[in-house]
C-alpha cells in the first residue's frame, strides 16, 4: 500500500481530515487540497494514483478539476467524484473520465476497497 498515492480534495476540512486518516490507516501516501485550483497544483506535483474529489467547491469545482486533470499529458489517475447533492448524473461524470460517482454520506469501506483495487 505504500506505493499508492491518494489525493483528497474537498472544501469541508473535517471530511479531508477524516478521509486522510482512513487512507493513511491502510498505509497510503495521502495529500489533500481544499478546492479544485489547489488540487490541480498538488496533483501536478504529487502525481497521485487515485483522486477523491468533491463536486461543490469554491474557485474550481469538481467537474472542472476533473476536466483539467484529464487534459494533462501522461497517465490518467483513477478519479472518484463525490457529491453531497447535485443534479449531475453518473453518465455525465463518467463521460468526463471519472471512474465513480459517489453520493454522500460516503461508505468509507467502499472507498478503501477502491484504493485496494488500484494498488
Amino acid at each position: 500500500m505504500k506505493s499508492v498515492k491518494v489525493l483528497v480534495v474537498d472544501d469541508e476540512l473535517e471530511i479531508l481530515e477524516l478521509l486522510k486518516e482512513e487512507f493513511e490507516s491502510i498505509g497510503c501516501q495521502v495529500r489533500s487540497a481544499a478546492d479544485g485550483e489547489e488540487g490541480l497544483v498538488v496533483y501536478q506535483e504529487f502525481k497521485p494514483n487515485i483522486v477523491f474529489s468533491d463536486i461543490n467547491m469554491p474557485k474550481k469545482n469538481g467537474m472542472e478539476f476533473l476536466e483539467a486533470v484529464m487534459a494533462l499529458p501522461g497517465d490518467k489517475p483513477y478519479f472518484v467524484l463525490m457529491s453531497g447533492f447535485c443534479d449531475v448524473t453518473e453518465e455525465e461524470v463518467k463521460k468526463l473520465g471519472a471512474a465513480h460517482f459517489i453520493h454522500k454520506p460516503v461508505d468509507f469501506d467502499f472507498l478503501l476497497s477502491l484504493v485496494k483495487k488500484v494498488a
Partner: protein
Amino acid sequence: MKVERARANKPAPFKSVNKTLLVYILLASTCITTISTAFSFYIDFTNEKEIQNQTLEQVKSSSLKSLTEAVWNVDQAQIESNLQGLLDVHDIIALKILDEKGKEAFSKEKAVEGSARDYVLVKKFPLVYERNSKSINLGTFIVSVSNYYLYQRLTRKVLFFFVSQGVKTLIISFIMLSIFGFFVTRHLNAMASHFVGSTLGDDSELQEIQLSRKLSYRDEFDILADSYNRLVQKVNTQYEAQQDEIVRKENLVEHSARMASIGEMASNVGHEINNPLTIIAGYSRRLGRVAEKMIPQGEMEEFHKVQESMDSSINRIGKIVTGLRNLSRDSTDEETSETSLGTLMHDVEALIGEKFKSMNIRFEIKYKNVSPDLMLKIKRVQVGQVLINLLNNSTYAIESQENPWVHIEIETTDEHLQISVNDSGLGIPDHIRDKIFEPFFSTKPVGAGTGIGLSISKRIMTDHLGTIGINEASHNTSIVLRFPLEIALAA
C-alpha cells in the same frame, strides 16, 4: 392599400328585410297592375272596334237600302229622317251624300267638340239602285265616324281600372306584408337582435334564444331556434369544460411550482445534511478505532452494536434525503428514464417509511411474480409522486385505526404491470367513487387537502398509457395502478 382593404372589409349598411320586402312588393304590385291594365285596355279596345265595325255593317245592311230608295224617289223628308236616325248612332259625327258626279247633294253633321274631328274614320258606301235587274249608280254615301269618343270612353275605363286594381293590389300587399311580418320577419328581427345585442363576440356564456310564439305546431323557426339552442348548450358545455381545464392547468402549474421549490429546498438541505453526515460517519469510524484501544476485548461487542445502529441511522438519513431529492424535483418536463422497480420502491419507502413507523402503520412491499431488479422505462419522479400521494391518502384514512397496515403489491398479468396500494381502510364509499379522480374533489376538511392529488395521479398514469382505478373486489381500500407491459424492459 390598407385603407381600401379596410373599406372592403367594412360590412355593407344594414337594411331591414321588412323594408326590402315592402319595396319589392310595391314594385311587383305596380307591375302587375300596369300589365293587367294594359291587357284590359287591349281587350276593351278590340271590343269597341268590333262594335264600331258592327255598327257600320248595320248601317250598310239596314239603312243603306232605304236611303237608296229615298234618293231614287228624291224624297227629301225620307232622306232627312234617315240621316237624322243615323246621326243618333254614337260615334257617327257626319253624313254626306254625293251625287253620281261627286257633287255634295246632302250633308248632315252633329255638333261636336273640335278635337272629335281629329280622330275621324271615313267610310264610303256606293248608292246603287236595283231596278228590273239593272243597277243604277245614284252616288256615294259617306259616313264619318269619330274615334274620339271611343278613346275617351277607353281612357276613363282604363283609368278607373288602373286605380281600382292599384288600390286592390296595394291593400293585398299590405295585408300580405303584415301576415309575413307576423309569421316571419318578427321572429327574424328577434333572432337578429338576440345575436347582435346580447351574446356573440364576448367571452361570457351564450344565451339561448326564446321566440315569442304560441303555436300548436312547429315550423322552420322552431327548428332553427332549437338547433341554435342546442348549439349554444354545446358551446356552453365546452366553454365550461375549457374553464375547468384552465383552472386545472393553473393548479397543475401551481403544484409543479410548489414541487419545484420543495425540490430546490431539498437540494440545499441535502447538501447541508450530507456533508455533516459524512463527517459523523467518519468520526464514528474514528471512535471505533479509539475504542478498540481503550475498551477491553470482551466489551467490544456492545460497542459495535451501538456503532452499527449509528451507521444505519446515518444511512437512513442519507436515503431520506436522496428520496426527497428524487421525488420532489420539478417533474413537469421529466423525460422517461430507465430505473429498476426496486429503486423506485426504495425512494418511496425512504420518504414515507418513517412516517409509517411513527404512526405504527405496518408497511410491506410484496413482489408477487416480479423481481425488484425489473428495469422500467418510466418517468421515475412522477410515478414516485403517484405512489407517495396514494400512500399519504392511506395514512390519512387509517391513522385512527387500531391495527393499521399498508401493503404495496406488485405483479404482472398478461397485459399489465400492476401496482396495488392496499390499506386497512374500509374502501371508498360508492357515492364518491366516480368523483375521486376529479380535480378539487377532497374528503379532507377544508385546508387539509387540495383535492388535486388523485387527478394529477390520473394524468401521470394516462401519460404512461396506464390507468388508475379502484379495486372494487377488495374488502379494504385498494387502488390499482396498471402500466402497459411495454414499460418493462426486456431483461
